[in-house]
């Protein structure tokens, strides 16, 4: 009995000590906070802010660059970002979030990529209850309003219709304004796939001489795109002048299919996301265009918004409703400007507390 209880007591006293210490440092932090008293818990000392970036997996170059951007921001304010990945598993994402929220949440800042629309609400409600600062990106159900929650500072996404149209127009231009194209769609029941395809349809309406010969889904996958493109090449042959794809992975798969068919360079290919291999392909002329949402910026901006509010440099009440849910700027990349994007750098001035929303293209309608 004695032997058993001794470690327990040791553990208990250690944890008490830890709690006491934590309490001290928090108080100290409160005391440190210069003139602006405010007296509320909102103002955290910069060194107490805890930064968390969460994406699906690091094996995706885009999402890895997102976390790198978060690291870059954290370094600029002398902090470290906690990098979390959940393997595109909704349950795992929720578990990680609840573990985070079970800890000290006063100065917790989370920049989250929800796995799907339906995963956003539980994260938001958890953060609201725990008092953590939350910024989400890409996925949000349309009927959930950011303004209904104090702790959900902002939701950032991109106008898929716009990016689909931009690359559609770039493709039309590359094939000289007329000819047959094929389209590879993403996962059909995702908002991104629907919006981007709607953008292509707009582009086709504006370029009446471009004919859509066929459209298939390749589920955003490089391997599936390879097979579907091979099949469509067998079906339409030389009629295909261009290939529109809803993301770069599929564009790269289509390029391999063209290579296997000996048509490399003869058919224009466009995608979205600006993954490193796509940029290389644009540099070498194999690919025509892609669209960048600027992953490193996304990784930094979410943390920056949370950091500015947590430290009191930005008052949450000063964020306008239009800045609570907004479309961020995206960039069309062609061979003319590809060099600017091959080694993405994060510009610290973009994350200054008075400059956080300068990439806004308007509120999400």
């Amino acid at each position, binding site marked *: 009995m004695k032997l058993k209880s001794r470690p327990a007591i040791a553990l208990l006293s250690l944890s008490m000590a830890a709690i006491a210490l934590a309490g001290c440092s928090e108080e100290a932090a409160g005391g440190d906070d210069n003139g602006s008293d405010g007296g509320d818990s909102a103002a955290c000392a910069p060194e107490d802010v805890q930064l968390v970036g969460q994406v699906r*997996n*690091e*094996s995706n*170059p885009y999402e*890895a660059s997102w976390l790198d951007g978060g690291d870059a921001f954290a370094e600029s304010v002398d902090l470290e970002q906690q990098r979390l990945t959940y393997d595109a598993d909704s349950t795992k994402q929720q578990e990680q979030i609840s573990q985070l929220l079970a800890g000290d949440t006063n100065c917790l800042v989370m920049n989250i990529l929800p796995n799907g629309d339906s995963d956003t609400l539980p994260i938001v409600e958890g953060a609201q209850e725990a008092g953590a600062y939350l910024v989400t990106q890409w996925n949000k159900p349309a009927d959930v309003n950011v303004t209904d929650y104090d702790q959900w500072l902002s939701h950032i996404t991109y106008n898929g219709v716009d990016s689909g149209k931009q690359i559609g127009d770039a493709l039309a231009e590359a094939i000289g304004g007329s000819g047959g194209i094929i389209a590879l*769609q993403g996962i*059909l029941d995702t908002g991104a796939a629907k919006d981007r395809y709607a953008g292509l349809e707009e582009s086709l309406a504006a370029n009446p001489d471009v004919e859509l010969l*066929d*459209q*298939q*889904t390749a589920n955003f*996958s*490089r*391997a599936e795109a*390879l*097979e*579907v493109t*091979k*099949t*469509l*090449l*067998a*079906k*339409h*042959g030389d009629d295909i002048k261009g290939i529109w794809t809803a993301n770069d992975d599929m564009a*790269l*798969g289509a390029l*391999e299919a063209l*290579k*296997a068919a000996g048509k490399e360079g003869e058919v224009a290919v466009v995608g979205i996301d600006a*993954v*490193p*291999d796509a940029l290389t392909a644009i540099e070498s002329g194999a690919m025509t265009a892609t669209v960048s949402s600027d992953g490193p910026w996304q990784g930094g901006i979410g943390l920056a918004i949370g950091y500015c509010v947590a430290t009191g440099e930005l008052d949450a009440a000063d964020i306008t409703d239009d800045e609570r849910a907004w479309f961020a700027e995206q960039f069309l990349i062609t061979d003319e400007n590809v060099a600017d994007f091959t080694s993405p750098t994060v510009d610290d001035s973009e994350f200054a507390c008075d400059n956080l929303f300068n990439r806004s293209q308007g509120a999400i309608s």
Partner: protein
Amino acid sequence: MTSPAEDVDVVAARPQPRRGVSFRDAGPPIALVVIFVVFAAISSDFRTFGNVQNIMDTAAVLAVVTCGITFVLMMGSIDLSAPGVMGAAAIAVSLLVLNNRNDNDLGLVGVLLAVLLAAGLGCVSGLALVILKVPSFMTTLGVSAIGLGVATLLFNGVQPNISDETLASWAVDRFLGFSYLTWIAVGCVFVGWLIQRYSRLGRYAFAIGGAEEVLALSGVKVAPYKVAVFTLAGAFYGLAGVMVTSQLSAGLVQAGKGYDFAAITAAVVGGTLLTGGRGGVLHSAVGVLLVTVLNNGLVQVGVSPYWQGGVQGLIVVAAVAAAVFPQRRRNQVTK
């Protein structure tokens, strides 16, 4: 010691040549011919030689995966490790041959090492099954996660692109109209058939699936053969991972995504039963062609992508139902 083993060989070999059984074996090939003829009649694009080339090239990777999984299914076990094992092999090979990440240039030795790594992962599945007695469903799922973990670690955030001439040429260069990958797949099916037909490993795999207890009671040590079968399957997945890398000119962690269930579907459609003891490599090869022709044909005749998934599923269920139709009286219990 030798005589019981010989008995078993006889038992294992018996179900093959019997009257009335022939229809069961003929079902899937007939279905393949029917589907092919129907698509050829509907679509003029489908019946071109270019498209037949395309079908064979597309079927290559799935055929190699299915070769491996067939041995496991014949034993009555299940194997879900293909995605992880293929991912690990794909990344490993892309880092071992000439690539943009490091200075390795091992060529075919790199391919061999990747296949060995995959065989090792398969061996882990087998060992966990026979030593820890964890059901194959769980062990292989776990090994798949281990493989993906290894692949993600090796991947390290930067896509390895291959520039090895030999490996890249497998997907592009052709011999007698078909890509080298297709010939590799044909070779795998042939080797698989030889193993199944003439080696003790193949015959015991059948016997284990048919009646493992009988085999054990006859004094055969079953465990080493089980481990060997999973190792062999792992090697096939590894080669498939290398083939995907050759096709995409890049090592992808997700190289094997979806191949586990695609291969099981192909094997079952071809007449290899999930309960074990029936079917074989050639059956599965027919199944692979059936599934591939179906995928290709639906695109060629212009079925809307929104409908394809559903239509595919319907035809697969119908094909399996047709394949097991002659045995429905004997299969009183369906689990």
